[in-house]
């Protein structure tokens, strides 16, 4: 196994903070933790190149560093790239994460690093990488390197990787299927018994929590405001001109309502596989309440209704996708000078 190992100036033996600006340098043998890694991996594992860079230099010149390191790893014909362990050193973690991620993507070889859970490199790179949980400092260096070696061996051999707790890496936040011995019925009863008896249990899915969205300032004067209607109920003109998918939609559309006081069922269809659409089909205003809003506009309670409504289909859609849809719609809302939006869902 041919390994290229990345270290910062401190673990690379150049010096402390005073050497944090030192540029990328290299050795053709194992250095510092690399020697321990070589020993732990044993027969056939060689650190063929050690790359060392000062922490400041690394973060200030990250793009050049990434290019240079990827090139060095390519030249070395490595089977594995290792960075760190970085413990709670933030700049070191950021560089290690960027480098591992680039090497993995560009060269298709596995990469392993190690950090403390609170290292800023973890937040940025955890999803794409196996980051061994290193603790805050080098106190458990040997254990950490052992875990890195264990993961590295499996990754290089293409063996299946166990769960975070078994292998010692930080949860990546991803899901994969696995056959288990106990049926879901048995697991459900195990869990409810543990819960009702105040014993500890492991949920199979952590409860998700999201940053609260701050309530924006109210509309000062609705009678002067331009209002837009947006729905995720999948209402589209007949023929679904933008091919908005009825499930896990990747697209949204803007549809003209400038001349209309009322939406008629025969002009629209519903691209949404998750609700009983009969009532909306019979009268689309039940989903996109143009008729009522137009009335308010006529009465002067609302300044002006924007000439298009926006629509997509909100069903089984991953957040990575809906965030993009939301951003795109928000841009449109801003461009059109809209003051208020009424969002309707199903």
């Amino acid at each position, binding site marked *: 196994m041919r390994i290229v190992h990345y270290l910062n100036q401190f673990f690379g033996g150049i010096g402390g903070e005073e050497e944090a600006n030192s540029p990328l340098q290299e050795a053709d043998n194992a250095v510092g933790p690399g020697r321990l890694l070589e020993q732990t991996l044993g027969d056939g594992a060689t650190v063929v190149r050690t790359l060392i860079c000062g922490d400041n230099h690394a973060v200030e010149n990250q793009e050049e560093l990434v290019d240079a390191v990827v090139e060095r790893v390519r030249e070395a014909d490595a089977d594995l790239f290792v960075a760190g362990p970085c413990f709670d050193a933030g700049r070191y973690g950021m560089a290690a994460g960027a480098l591992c991620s680039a090497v993995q993507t560009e060269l298709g070889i596995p990469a392993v690093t190690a950090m403390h859970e609170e290292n800023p490199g973890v937040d940025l790179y955890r999803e794409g990488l196996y980051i061994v949980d290193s603790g805050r400092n080098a106190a458990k260096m040997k254990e950490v390197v052992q875990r890195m070696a264990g993961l590295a061996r499996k990754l290089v051999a293409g063996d299946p990787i166990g769960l975070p707790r078994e292998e010692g890496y930080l949860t990546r936040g991803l899901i994969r299927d696995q*056959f288990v011995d106990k049926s879901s019925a048995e*697991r*459900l009863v195990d869990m409810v018994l543990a*819960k009702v008896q105040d014993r500890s249990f492991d*949920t199979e899915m952590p*409860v998700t*929590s999201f940053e609260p969205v701050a309530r924006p300032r109210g509309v000062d004067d609705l009678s002067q405001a331009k209002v837009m209607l947006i729905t995720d109920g999948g209402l589209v003109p007949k023929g679904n001109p933008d091919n908005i998918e009825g499930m896990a939609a990747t697209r949204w559309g803007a549809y003209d309502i400038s001349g209309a006081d009322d939406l008629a069922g025969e002009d629209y269809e519903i691209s949404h596989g998750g609700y009983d659409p009969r009532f909306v089909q019979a009268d689309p205003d039940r989903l996109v309440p143009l008729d009522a809003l137009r009335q308010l506009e006529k009465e002067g309670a609302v300044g002006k209704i924007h000439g298009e409504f926006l629509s997509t289909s909100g069903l089984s859609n991953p957040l990575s996708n809906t965030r993009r849809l939301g951003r795109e719609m928000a841009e449109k809302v801003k461009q059109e000078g809209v003051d208020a939006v009424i969002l309707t869902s199903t």
Partner: protein
Amino acid sequence: MNLTLAYHPVRALRFGTPTRLDGTTLDIDTDDLRALLLEDEALADVAFEQVAPGEDCRAGPVFDIIEPRAKTAGDGPDFPGILGPPLTAGKGTTHVLSGMAVTVLDEHAAGGSRGSIGRVLEMTGPAAEGSCYSPLHHLVVVPRMAPGKDGATAQRAKRVAGLKTAVYLAQASTAHAPSESQTFNPVDPGPPGRQGLPRVAYVGQIFSRQRRAELDEPVLYGHNTTGMLPVLLHPDEWLDGAVVTSYYTSMGGAETYLYQNHPIITELYRRHHTGELNFVGTVASIAGSDNTDRDRNCRAAASLVKWALNADAAVLTKYGGGVPHADLAETARLLESEGIRTSVMVSDVSRDRRVESALLFNFPEVDAIVYGGGNDTRWEVRPAARVIAATPAIGELLAGARELGAMNVAGVTNQQGASRLRAVVY
């Protein structure tokens, strides 16, 4: 309420006259059975095939899978509300042909969210290993509809044909002594020594109003569930034919077989009998069609668990996709707010394989979650030596080497608790 299941193991199927149980071999008189099924004028014809475990065979799309069961004469109707009057199920003795199933095929390729092949019965190879149906002998029933009989009429005809076949076959066993029988002790926490055990209930959705039930679609005692509120059921009612699966089972799967052998109810019974808990009863619930419907249903289900069952804890399952997922969580939240501890099972809805997209709720108190997998498992299966399908076109679609996703194989993913396929966080 005291149901006895009398088991007659079946180790071979044989087409022959008359229909009878010969040791562990079931002889099936297909002409006799066909005549019985063709009493339904919606059916033009029906074909039968027998399949053994391990056979290089693929059949599909599967409409339903049913365990052959027949009640002792005088102990009540089989599948009450569908094949007989809607009298209470779960009483007396029901004879079971264990180790086999009746598998009814659809006459159309399924389409919809599970793709063109729907769910298939896969009897050998890697995909079969994950299914609870591949170890069984199957009598595959392939109905052909009479001209002009389609839609709800055809669905009903397939449902009834499957149930009638299941009863007809098991009637061959009712005069025999079973090799084993199982009686479920009535749910009763009264006896000494049981007072301190947690009182556990099961709350299972049996339908989601995201789809309109057909007028004559039998789900609960033959009723299509329209307008129904959650209802108390004795566990034995589930096991004895009170509930059958809806026509819509595409999200995660549910077969009548797994109501008859309900994995959660049988597990709660097992733990009841080993003295780990008091299984106090069940509630059959419905996922709502809108917020009002949701609130009404979730609150009614929670109230039954609290006030009628006086439970300390409850296990909850859903039926279908996103709306049922949200209703399940809301019911659990209401129960938790009443001090009733819950565990819930949800199926994988995270299409980008990220944890952040995995749940449709974020209630901190609903924190005991079993997470079923399926979106991430597929097999490259070899061509099948034998294919059973209603039409040559579907047969051709199924025959070749192809990719089969976990959700396309009956018995791999399941919302009644049978599945061993889990989605793990890494």
